């Protein structure tokens, strides 16, 4: 490509530099500090001056701990629950609000509101809704003739309760992205498909969905990163309970670091979880690239 000459390449690197530098400078110290901590034992008497070098024992403890494993599994469970529902619901709602009918732009705007609320406040609002007896949710259920559900107080439901609050907040994100993509799809394939006499469902699965795929992958990818770090909603709603049913990785790290003052173990857990997510995302990219090649 003639356009990109040597000199330009250097300028491009200069473009890249500020971002790299800022990110490097702002993350290197915290990362190093956390790395340092992860090899140290805590010392209660001097809270944040860990002195004792303990080698890999913090990592050993994390990897051998059933609590960490449980937290990891719970994180992925929650991720699967929220992402799948957000995907289906987001696409579904996008199909509704992209109909060329009066009132739809307003509906789109209203539906974006949940995304704009702080996750801690989302947690509080849902806490309000979930109170088994005083909350609105069970009141509506009883109104419709259903039994009340022990949302955040039963180990069977609590994870769903967290998932629902997260789904409520972030489905609009998927909806927004999908709606935008839907509106820009070129009409030709549809006309062709319609002429061929395919049913609506066939058109959707064979024509629309493949075109949406890149958008959806991209949206899900961003959601996955955030879902892996989910913290605020759980901190407010259940704090990991009842029992340990909603104890995700972030809560595990929080409890180790701040409740138990075991900053070393918390830091080790952070690195282990970082490795896990990075490996998963690399695999994701690999499989994506293979798809694109084939």
């Amino acid at each position, binding site marked *: 490509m003639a356009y990109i000459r040597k000199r330009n390449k250097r300028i491009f690197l200069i473009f890249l530099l500020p971002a790299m530098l800022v990110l490097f400078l702002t993350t290197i110290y915290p990362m190093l500090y956390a790395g340092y901590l992860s090899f140290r034992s805590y010392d209660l008497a001097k809270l944040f001056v860990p002195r004792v070098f303990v080698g890999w024992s913090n990592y050993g403890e994390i990897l051998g701990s059933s609590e960490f494993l449980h937290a990891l599994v719970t994180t992925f469970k929650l991720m699967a629950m929220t992402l799948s529902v957000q995907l289906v619901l987001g696409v579904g709602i996008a199909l509704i609000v992209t109909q060329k009918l009066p009132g739809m732009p307003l509906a789109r705007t209203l539906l974006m509101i949940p995304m704009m609320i702080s996750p801690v406040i989302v947690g509080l609002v*849902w806490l309000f809704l979930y109170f088994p007896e005083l909350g609105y949710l069970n009141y509506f259920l009883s109104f419709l003739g259903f039994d009340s559900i022990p949302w955040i107080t039963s180990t069977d439901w609590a994870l769903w309760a967290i998932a629902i609050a997260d789904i409520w907040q972030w489905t609009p994100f998927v909806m927004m992205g999908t709606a935008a993509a839907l509106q820009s799809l070129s009409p030709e394939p549809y006309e062709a498909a319609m002429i061929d006499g395919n049913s609506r469902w066939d058109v959707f699965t064979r024509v629309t969905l493949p075109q949406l795929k890149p958008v959806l992958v991209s949206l899900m990818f961003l959601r996955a990163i955030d879902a892996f770090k989910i913290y605020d909603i759980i901190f407010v709603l259940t704090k990991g309970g009842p029992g340990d049913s909603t104890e995700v990785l972030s809560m595990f790290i929080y409890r180790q670091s701040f409740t138990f003052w075991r900053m070393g173990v918390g830091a080790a857990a952070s690195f282990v979880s970082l490795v896990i997510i990075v490996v998963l995302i690399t695999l994701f990219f690999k499989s994506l690239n293979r798809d694109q090649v084939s």
Partner: protein
Amino acid sequence: MTRNLRQNILVYALLAVVLIVFMTPIYLIVSSSVKPSPIMFQKPPAFLFTPTFEHYHDLFAMRPFTKFIWNSLIVALGSTAFSLTIGSLAAYAISRIRHKRMNDVAFWILSMRMFPPIAVVVPYYIIFKSAGLLDTPLALIIVYSTANIPLTVWLMKGFFDEVPLALEEAAAVDGYGLLATFWYVTLPLAAPGLAVSAVFCFIFSWNEFLFALMLTGSEAQTATVAVMSFWSSDAVQWGRIMAGSFIILIPGVIFVLTCQRWLVRGLTMGSVK
């Protein structure tokens, strides 16, 4: 015709269900913010009551809430502007440099978003303390930018990939330098992407709680922390929290409404990676 009518009715019915489900929590915020405290929790919930504005009054009487909203604005706008500037430059470079290592660079930048925030709170506290930046909006702008820059790079790269190279080449032929090409040709075409990135950076910075709690005091406290501070040792002061939540929702809505035209176009282009 009847088929169309029936179909429209179905669409509106579904929309009604969706709106009811998604708007109930919003209704809860609004109604609780004007509900007198003794009947805040009641079985069945009180739907009809004489609204009171005491919670709104208390919010401003008991905390310098206007100042906290101002702080939030400075932090959110500051981090958004900063992240967009250097993030889109970096994204442009990544998009244009043809080198196989560029994927790794993009990935490294994105991975900055993946470290659990809870693990870096203490180190950030120590740095800002020694730099004298504790309890200043700048500290939060820096921290939020480490999350916002990767997002901007990720989103903007998609947009720049879509801008036809032919246009840039034409500009180069016309004698535009690289920066001028970027500024006058590429960026306007990717403007919707800037809107999308701006919205997400703004929303994240506006709403963040953990760092805002740990790194600020009375000077730079953000509105989100101030609202949550009505969770006290003996009570969650629901009315005031809901009133505060409603107020801090408004800037976000205004911001999104302003950007909405761009947003729709923006999400379409960029996300098609």
